[in-house]
């Protein structure tokens, strides 16, 4: 249409420059993880690796074996927290989002406004008093302290409700109600299959947050700590572990990236309804 060649070249150049800015540190991480010891401490340092080795990864696994509790315990903790937390999040958010979006009950506007306002402040504000609440509930040092708060993420409900509002046609719901289906039945058999991108996105976001949840002020016994925490301990261990820390960072970053790559189109589709009407 009206695309000048100069504009095209300019835009692509800018994209290339900033893409490099975003991408090169990650490439550097991968290179660090593959460098043998002599290349890690060369001067002047080289960016790419000349003789890649998997020795850093094997050393990482060996280091994992020397931890206090078996390393598989950390992996189990993260997997358990992630799976249970994600599942609960999707369930609760779907129930609430459907009701907010499709059932006209008194108070729905008020409740949704609370959700929008709670997007406006960061969880650090509540972190302190959350600590008081969780310790008075007696959940300190248990899985519950991490899983249960993960069930009620603001972003999850917001995205789900916005998507449901626009993607589930009212006519279908009305005919189902006329046929006598209960709301729960409608939700599970009609609405949920229609909003598959949304609950896929929710799953991914919840999983990403739980995977990346490192140190938590609620957990201090070793056998409940997460994989992320253990990896962090290894990274900040000592400088002689530069290659190992690179390997650790690669492992940590591969999982969310892989998950995102698989589901990218679904995530984008969900985000298309994420706008906030003023």
């Amino acid at each position: 249409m009206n695309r000048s060649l100069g504009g095209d070249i300019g835009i692509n150049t800018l994209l290339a420059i900033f893409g490099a800015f975003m991408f090169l540190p990650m490439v550097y991480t991968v290179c660090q993880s593959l460098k043998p010891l002599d290349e890690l401490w060369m001067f002047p340092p080289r960016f790419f690796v000349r003789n890649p080795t998997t020795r850093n990864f094997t050393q990482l696994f060996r280091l994992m074996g020397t931890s206090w509790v078996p390393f598989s315990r950390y992996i189990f903790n993260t997997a358990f927290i992630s799976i249970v937390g994600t599942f609960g999040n999707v369930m609760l958010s779907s129930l609430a989002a459907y009701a907010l979006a499709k059932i006209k009950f008194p108070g729905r506007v008020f409740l949704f406004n609370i959700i929008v306002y709670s997007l406006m402040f960061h969880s650090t504000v509540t972190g302190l008093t959350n600590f008081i609440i969780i310790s008075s509930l007696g959940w300190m040092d248990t899985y519950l302290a991490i899983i249960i708060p993960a069930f009620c993420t603001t972003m999850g409900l917001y995205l789900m409700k916005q998507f449901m509002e626009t993607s589930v046609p009212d006519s279908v719901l009305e005919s189902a109600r006329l046929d006598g289906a209960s709301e729960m039945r409608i939700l599970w058999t009609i609405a949920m299959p229609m909003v598959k991108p949304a609950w896929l996105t929710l799953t991914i976001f919840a999983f990403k947050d739980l995977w990346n949840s490192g140190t938590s002020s609620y957990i201090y016994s070793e056998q409940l700590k997460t994989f992320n925490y253990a990896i962090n301990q290894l990274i900040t261990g000592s400088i002689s572990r530069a290659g190992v820390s690179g390997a650790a960072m690669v492992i940590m970053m591969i999982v969310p990236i892989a998950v995102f790559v698989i589901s990218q189109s679904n995530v984008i589709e969900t985000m298309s309804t994420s706008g906030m009407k003023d």
Partner: protein
Amino acid sequence: MSEKAATVTKKPVARKKVTKWQYTWTEMKKNWIAYTMIGPFFILFFTFTVIPVVLSIILSFTTFNMLEWPHFVGLKNYLRLLLEDDIFLLAVKNTLVFASITGPVSYLMSLMFAWFINELTPKIRAVVTLIFYAPSISGNVYMIWTVLFSGDQYGYINSILLKLNFITTPIQFLTNTDYIMPIVIIVALWTSLGTSFLSFIAGFQTVDRSLYEAAAVDGVKNRWQELWYVTLPYMRPQLMFGAILAITGSFGFGSVITAMVGFPSPDYCAHTIMHHLEDYGGERFEMGYASAIATILFFMMIGANMLVRKILSKVGK
């Protein structure tokens, strides 16, 4: 037919007088299933998001050290914060500097790159989206910046500068107060292309193509005009959503700073309000004082968000 209609007298309709509250109550009873559906989520949500804020505001007027019952002291915490606590004022300055740079810049970056990426073909678009989005989801990859900026000659940036003879001894990037803020801002921007970025990409993709054609007919000459006159007004909901996320994120950016330059940072140069909060809450257990800090931070965030919301509602009008 019409005569028959004219001769039928209208009976007065028996209508019960119903107040607004009674109407609401009957509606609530009719929709009881909705309340059971939102119940689990909102009970947890109130417990972990709403009540903590209220509790924080209440506690800010007390002194509380977790061992004894809170003790009401009125405005003493706030007066101490604003008049006596130099580090808090430094933290406020740092936070405002940080937020006012990171917030708008990351917002514009998200918008700009989403727009550029939208111009590409779909296959390339998916790859480039991944490249830009990956740093924000990759756990602790931001630590690689500490390696790049490492203070010895093996740090990559230092080695380039040494080789090109710009400097003769390695610069201590991560402990020198002059460099810490810029570096932290760079890392913040690097990890900031997150959910709002995806929202913009999705928004650009869903703009109706026929709008562009109509605009071209009406005399829109190049892509910049197209952006300003057609695309952005259409995308105002996404712009609003992205703005809220950008502001909230920029005010709450703290854990990365701690991981990179330590806690507290040298001379408190990267000490944000969040760190101050952690200091008094997590380390010294002065819960009342820390609650006052949290409350101030809360109102700052809400205030900034409402301000931006008002500004954005005027874009394109």
